[in-house]
């Protein structure tokens, strides 16, 4: 993007700033567009599950303008603040919550190298920022000066913080299999047929995927774990006192993190932008062959990832409208007594599988993903084995493993 602008004669720094601005706005629209679609989808799915029609009259055939109607209602509603509330914190809470949810999208790749900022610690960054949403909730609970919202906030904080442990453990397994935390590389290692997906890499990772789904649903506060806004007990939990635009920011934050968590699951376990059948390779288009081919391949990848993420979100909605809610101590026991031990055991299992059966059961069956590890040992200063220093400015050892054919040296930030 920036090179294109520089080609147009813009000064360097202006080109870079416009490129950054464009990607930021695009990401913001992903959340806003996503929220619009999911509001409508949630109403329709809930209706279908409950044997009724859902919105039909707003805007044409299937009531697709319902989200817009909700948006206008939220904008028109009065943003009132309870009398005893702590003004600054009350106003700040929704934006803190939304920023945390938005911030994680920076490191999320939508197709090969189509990413806000390609971080080397992308997975770690996403999980870390996901944990920051708790502050928005605690502030909202405390600032609303009502017992019920404080209850809701404390419950949610305890739940999200405790579910970060198993979530972290589940996320580490694909990182171990790919040998790097860079989401783009993880997604790219699952290219090819569906059998290359990490979901089918070994039985342990398969179980870890389902533990990840549970923890993700819990850490995003949905379905059986939505303690914070348990209508039957706490009226609406921490955002009882909010209305209008502020409430919609909490809503957007929730849908944003739902989409984020499903997209992360897609990239880590379900091959990200690689479809079940490698259509692009079959058709002969691939990264190398010219600009428009690369653009088409990435568009296809974008479609794949968004489809998988949307499937994840629809799954969460489906769960929400069928299962009753768990009690706070049951939520905690599922985390400490079920999710964490299972995740730990499966992590150990995946590790031993990776150690002793790097090629999978049939030696040629799935591409050995472990070479990146050996590549490091021969690095200068490490073991004596000489290591061909790659070209260009990369003084350190290449982050990609030598045998990777389409290995792109990590690009210089400037």
């Amino acid at each position, binding site marked *: 993007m920036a090179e294109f602008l520089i080609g147009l004669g813009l000064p360097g*720094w202006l080109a870079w700033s416009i490129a950054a601005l464009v990607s930021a706005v695009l990401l913001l629209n992903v959340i806003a567009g996503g929220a619009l679609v999911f509001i409508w989808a949630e109403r329709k799915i809930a209706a279908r599950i409950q044997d009724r029609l859902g919105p039909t009259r707003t805007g044409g055939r299937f009531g697709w303008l319902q989200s817009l109607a909700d948006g206008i209602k939220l904008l028109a509603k009065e943003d009132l603040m309870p009398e005893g509330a702590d003004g600054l914190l009350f106003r700040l809470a929704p934006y803190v919550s939304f920023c945390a949810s938005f911030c994680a999208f920076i490191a999320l790749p939508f197709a090969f190298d189509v990413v806000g900022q390609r*971080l080397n610690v992308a997975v770690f960054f996403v999980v870390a920022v996901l944990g920051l949403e708790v502050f928005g909730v605690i502030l909202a609970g405390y600032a609303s000066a009502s*017992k019920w919202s404080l209850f809701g906030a404390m419950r949610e904080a305890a739940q999200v913080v405790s579910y970060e442990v198993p979530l972290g453990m589940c996320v580490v397994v694909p990182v171990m299999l790919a040998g790097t935390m860079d989401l783009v590389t993880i997604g790219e290692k699952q290219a090819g047929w569906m059998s290359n997906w990490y979901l089918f890499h070994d039985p342990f990772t398969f179980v870890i995927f389902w533990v990840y789904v549970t923890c993700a649903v819990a850490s995003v506060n949905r379905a059986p774990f939505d303690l914070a806004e348990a209508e039957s007990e706490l009226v609406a939990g921490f955002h009882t006192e909010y209305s209008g635009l502020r409430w919609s920011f909490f809503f957007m934050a929730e849908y944003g993190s739902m989409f984020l968590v499903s997209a992360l699951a897609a990239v880590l376990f379900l091959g990200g932008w690689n479809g079940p059948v490698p259509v692009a390779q079959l058709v*002969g288009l691939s990264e190398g062959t010219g600009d428009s081919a690369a653009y088409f391949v990435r568009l296809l990848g974008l479609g794949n990832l968004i489809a998988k993420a949307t499937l994840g979100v629809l799954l969460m909605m489906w769960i929400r409208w069928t299962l009753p809610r768990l009690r706070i101590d049951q939520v905690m026991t599922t985390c400490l007594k079920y999710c964490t031990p299972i995740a730990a055991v499966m992590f150990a299992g995946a590790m031993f599988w990776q150690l002793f059966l790097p090629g999978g059961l049939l030696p040629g069956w799935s591409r050995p993903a472990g070479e990146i590890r050996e590549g490091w040992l021969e690095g200068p*200063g490490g073991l004596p084995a000489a290591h061909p220093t790659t070209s260009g400015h990369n003084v350190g050892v290449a982050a990609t493993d030598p045998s990777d054919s389409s290995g792109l040296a990590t690009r210089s930030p400037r």
Partner: protein
Amino acid sequence: MTGMLAMDISSLTDVIVPTLATTFRPAPILAALPVAGVNWHSVLFLLFAALACGFAVAVVAADNVVRMALYLVFSLGATAGLFFLAGAEFIGAMQLMIYVGGTLVLLVFGVMLTAQAPLVAIKASSSDRTLAAVAGASLLALLLTAAFSVDAWMAPGSEVVPAPSATPLGMALIGVRVDTPPPGSPAGGRAGYMLPFEIVSVHLLVVLVGAAYLARAKRRKTPRAIDAVASAMPVEPVVASTASGVASGRPAGGAKSALVGGGR
């Protein structure tokens, strides 16, 4: 056949892009903008540094303990930004997750548990404030003179550097130093961090178990009558009031039942 298709598309675009570039030439006014090449790295540094220092001073200035906690969160978040800018991505993410996401959540929990009505804002007397300001300013002056006295540190940073990567750090933690020794550092292998890494993990376990034991909720036989909460302000007389949580939700009037009334 598909290969042919691919060729046509790419040759087509190869024609369009250059013509587009030549026809659309931004007017010369763009080049005459007052600000020459803005170095985004510096601008972002100034932003995060301003945030970090501003909120750190705000933490000192604030009285309400919950506001202090909030400002601390923003200050440490900005520090994480500084780490990213300095190229230490892993440390920045670690700061976000462990420090801001873990330690400060713990701190906010502590604030929530103890910030009952009288204890939320304990005012410091104005004499203490001026004393602290003077001491702080002098300490700052001392540190800055020390920092400015070394010429080596004054050199501006370099432009082109290798992309940051977390793997050398990870390998260092398990004892294998794979990063190239910086120029001018003494010869000979540098130590990995296997031992401190194991010690810290055991240390963390011991500490957290101890802390959990120290602050455990103890069972008790009979529901405890709430005794008077000693007011934090020595000036006010000790008022025997029911400390009923953050917002006192005392049910209005009502019958003198054992539950609601009671001479506490």
